[in-house]
């Protein structure tokens, strides 16, 4: 492998690995390449990354080499993380959302009865993200709050209204392979003419 080729491959490896790569590991992956040559390539790579205007650097940590961001960029990375986490939903969030969507209007107690775990926190997050809203109170003891979905929710899923939510049954049918549900080409009568 030529010098600049080797540098390129090492850069790609460090990028994709996500964890520090030791010289030994690099030698193993780049079998046939001299460890000294790899060390030289790493040096060249490091120099390239030290040029002005770079947001990344090659660091030597935990017995290996790794690509990392420069500390000057930290404030923006934090801003990104904040935005990203505001647009993400956890597994439990999704579960809770699914229950509310299909059972609405529904109380927290009912959601928890189905999920079998405390759901106060998740419901709060979903309220904050404006995917759920309080739609009223149930009559009776304690008058618990009722949860329902918002317009935002419909928007995320590309639904015109709640009646467009597919039924669980429909979903099961999707996986069935019996060609019964819908005529595929022509109506049956035509075939027997």
């Amino acid at each position, binding site marked *: 492998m030529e010098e600049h080729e080797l540098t390129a491959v090492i850069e790609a490896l460090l990028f994709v690995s996500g964890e520090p790569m030791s010289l030994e590991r690099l030698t193993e992956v780049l079998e046939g390449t001299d460890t000294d040559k790899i060390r030289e390539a790493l040096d060249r790579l490091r120099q390239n990354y030290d040029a002005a205007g770079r947001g990344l650097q090659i660091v030597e940590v935990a017995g290996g080499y790794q690509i990392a961001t420069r500390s000057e960029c930290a404030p923006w990375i934090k801003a990104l993380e904040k935005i990203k986490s505001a647009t993400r939903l956890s597994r439990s969030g999704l*579960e809770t959302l*699914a229950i509310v969507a299909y059972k609405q209007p529904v109380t927290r107690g009912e959601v928890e009865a189905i999920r*079998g775990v405390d759901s106060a926190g998740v419901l709060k997050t979903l309220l904050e993200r404006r995917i759920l809203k309080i739609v009223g109170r149930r009559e009776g003891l304690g008058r618990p709050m009722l949860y329902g979905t918002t317009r935002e929710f419909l928007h995320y899923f590309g639904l015109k209204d709640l009646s467009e939510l597919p039924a*669980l049954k429909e979903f*099961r049918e999707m996986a069935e392979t019996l*060609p019964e549900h819908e*005529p595929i*080409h022509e109506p*049956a009568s035509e*075939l027997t003419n």
Partner: protein
Amino acid sequence: MDDSQISYAVKLPAFEGPLDLLLHLIKKNEINIYDIPIALITGQYLEYLSLMTSLNLAVAGEFLVMAATLIHIKSKTLLPPSETDEEDEEDDPRADLVTRLLEYQRFKDAAQGFELREQEWREVFYRPAPHATDGPTDEINLVDLSLFDLLEALRGVMERAPEKKGLEIVVDELSVQDRMSLVLDRLEREESITFTSLFDDDTTRLAMIVTFLALLELIRLKRVRILQAELFGTIRVWKNTNLQPS
């Protein structure tokens, strides 16, 4: 089963469906797609199906529906030419099939394009998204959220839920074997029966497919023969005695 049939291995090309098979036959025979010799293609198509059956391969219902369609088209092409001399393409019984074949071919080509792109981009790797906090890794971006995720989540919860209801599946009791006996029974009582009458009692597409499969099996076993006594005559099913129908 015939020993001779098992003794040699036949490598059957796999087809995505009847249209795929038809396109293959058209290419193989170097046929002009706008002028498909329907008898030739129907013959080869049925040969392929019976080969599949004899190799004990499952023949998907769609293949049988197409077989029926081909036979239907063929019987139409045997009708005398219409009064008007001009050839009216609209009247060509093959027209619908040709349109479907061409449409399908378009997407087959497009699929090939996707395959090339897939090959190219499989060589490109990204960095796995790091997680700022040690939160759960299966978070999903709201932008990428789909109804499927919602349903999957609901299904997961429902499966874990305490009172779960079993899913009832009604299985239609239709067997090829039963249909074969029915056809043979009828041929005991009648000398021959029309092809179309075979399907009289079939109310669903699946039932028709099973009947058709039974018929193919009977042909393969040489228990029945299908004959068209005269040009544009009715297609009839005969019991395979060695006597020629008069």
